[in-house]
């Protein structure tokens, strides 16, 4: 799926892996390591949404429900129910997966823009619950996570260990997405995007394929939510906001819909722009809106497919 063939492809993959592993030594200070961790969290999230937007061709404007939902459930289970990290993480992905199952049944009652509106409404309802149900969610004050987990006795409190933890999760998600893209299931998913009626005539259960993609996207979105709350050690309604859903959608679209590396590139670009801009001015929302306009009007296919097209035209 990267468009590079044979030996060259493995060379670049290996080079990227080495660079990612060496990153904490290459960065001048912890700020940049933390920034890289944030990018990895958002990349996992964008990859999960890409299952829907890219492979299944369904645009969701409620994907913050899974990042914020995962973060809330995990923080609540640990801070208020007193669970350990392992049990909390397991329960979180199960709950978020089940929620995605329910939301998927509802959202898939419609397609196209109806789907987009229902996902948006569901996401906003979740935001409203987190914001208003103060006794349960802490309202605007959010929930604080007492500590980061320590898987296999590795403390993740320092920037570099957390970075490696996020990198490991990212690698797993990347591998899963790559396997899905290569699998017959991935092909069927793309089939339901391009030719739903033909797929249906061929005997595929289009609804089930779409629903399973919705659940998978929600599940991995919940994993991103775990990373998010581990990184921030805090979650507030902001994590469930429409702005978050819009950010992850623009990451996916900006990088290039349907490719695996696209959402990662989008996550890198958006997170960098956001961090840089936010350190100078307070107008990130305006810039996000302008990015939407520019990307949709001038770069509808995204950066990665656009570059790939240029490479095919001018490359060797």
């Amino acid at each position, binding site marked *: 799926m990267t468009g590079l063939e044979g030996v060259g492809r493995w060379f670049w993959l290996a080079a990227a892996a080495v660079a990612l592993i060496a990153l904490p030594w290459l960065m001048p200070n912890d700020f940049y390591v933390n920034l890289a961790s944030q990018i990895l969290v958002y990349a996992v999230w964008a990859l999960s949404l890409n299952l829907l937007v890219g492979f299944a061709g369904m645009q969701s404007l409620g994907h913050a429900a899974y990042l914020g939902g995962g973060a809330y459930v995990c923080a609540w289970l640990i801070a208020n129910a007193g669970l350990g990290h392992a049990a909390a993480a397991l329960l979180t992905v199960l709950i978020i997966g089940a929620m995605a199952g329910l939301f998927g049944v509802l959202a898939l009652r*419609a*397609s196209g*823009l109806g789907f*987009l509106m229902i996902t948006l409404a*569901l996401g906003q309802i979740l935001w409203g619950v987190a914001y*208003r149900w103060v006794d349960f969610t802490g309202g605007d004050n959010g929930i604080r996570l007492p500590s980061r987990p320590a898987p296999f006795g590795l403390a993740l409190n320092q920037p570099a260990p957390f970075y490696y933890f996020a990198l490991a999760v990212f690698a797993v998600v990347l591998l899963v997405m790559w396997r899905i893209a290569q699998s017959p299931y991935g092909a069927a998913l793309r089939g339901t995007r391009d030719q739903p009626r033909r797929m249906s005539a061929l005997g595929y259960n289009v609804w089930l394929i779409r629903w399973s993609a919705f659940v998978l996207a929600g599940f991995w979105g919940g994993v991103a939510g775990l990373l998010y709350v581990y990184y921030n050690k805090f979650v507030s309604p902001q994590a469930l906001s429409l*702005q978050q859903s819009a950010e992850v959608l623009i990451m996916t679209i900006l990088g290039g819909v349907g490719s695996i590396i696209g959402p990662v590139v989008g996550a890198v670009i958006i997170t960098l722009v956001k961090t840089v801009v936010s350190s100078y001015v307070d107008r990130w929302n*305006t810039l996000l809106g302008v990015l939407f306009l520019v990307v949709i009007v001038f770069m509808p296919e995204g950066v990665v497919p656009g570059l790939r097209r240029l490479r095919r035209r001018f490359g060797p």
Partner: protein
Amino acid sequence: MQFWVIQTLNSLALGGLLFLLSSGFSLIFGLMRMANLAHGVFFMLGAYLGVTLLQAGVNFWLAALGGGLLVALLGGLLERCVLRALAGNEQGQVLVTLGVSFIVADLCLVVWGGDPIPLSPPAGLRAPLFFMGLAFPTYRLAVLFVAIAAAVLLYVVMERTRIGAMIRAGVDDMAMARIVGIRVSLLFTTVFCLGAALAGAGGVIGGPMLSAYPGLDSDMLPLALVVVILGGVGSLVGSFVGSFIVGGLYSFGTALFPDLAYFVLFLPMLLVLVLRPRGLFGRTLA
């Protein structure tokens, strides 16, 4: 008893506001096949313009008219200059309206600041009416009246006039409407401006109840979405009925279970989606 009177009137007034907001949203969706996610921000901008116009000493109802017209101007610009460039790419259009809503909301924050600004209702409507020993908030009655008047007017325009017939033709079958010589692109602009004007005027009229505050847009947009999901896309009757259902649920929900007001909205939406996905009065969500 007084509680129920107040809450019922609150419900009806909120339902009226939601009708002003969602009727335009629904018509735009029905005709242009795109969800205008800037509709919430149109409402909020209307409320803020109302603040400024009232501070300038303009009469309240003239301010509502002025707010509606200014927002309609913005809507016309958006439709002509941006959405037109993306004709045929509905999902792209939706995302662009979302981008515009972020920009406008952020600029509102710059211009009017972060604190909620209440709008004062017209002088004659501030004191409550007393009837049978109960107090009726006059302004809410007036909002309800305005919304019903707007609904009747819209209904007459849609059902009894040439332009209404053209809009209905466009909603039903755009290709056929084009073939019989209706200038559908002009209809797009008309309906978009009309929807924006209704939302903007609704913002001013809702100001005394809701105030103008950052986040008003993202509070109102989901309500409008739920109205349209309930009532059905492109249906005026659907958005009327849906508005009062949502207004009632939300007002009583906020009063009786303040924590779960949003959750109360979720249930009817769930029921309608499961039992009747095209909405109570609409065609299939496409």
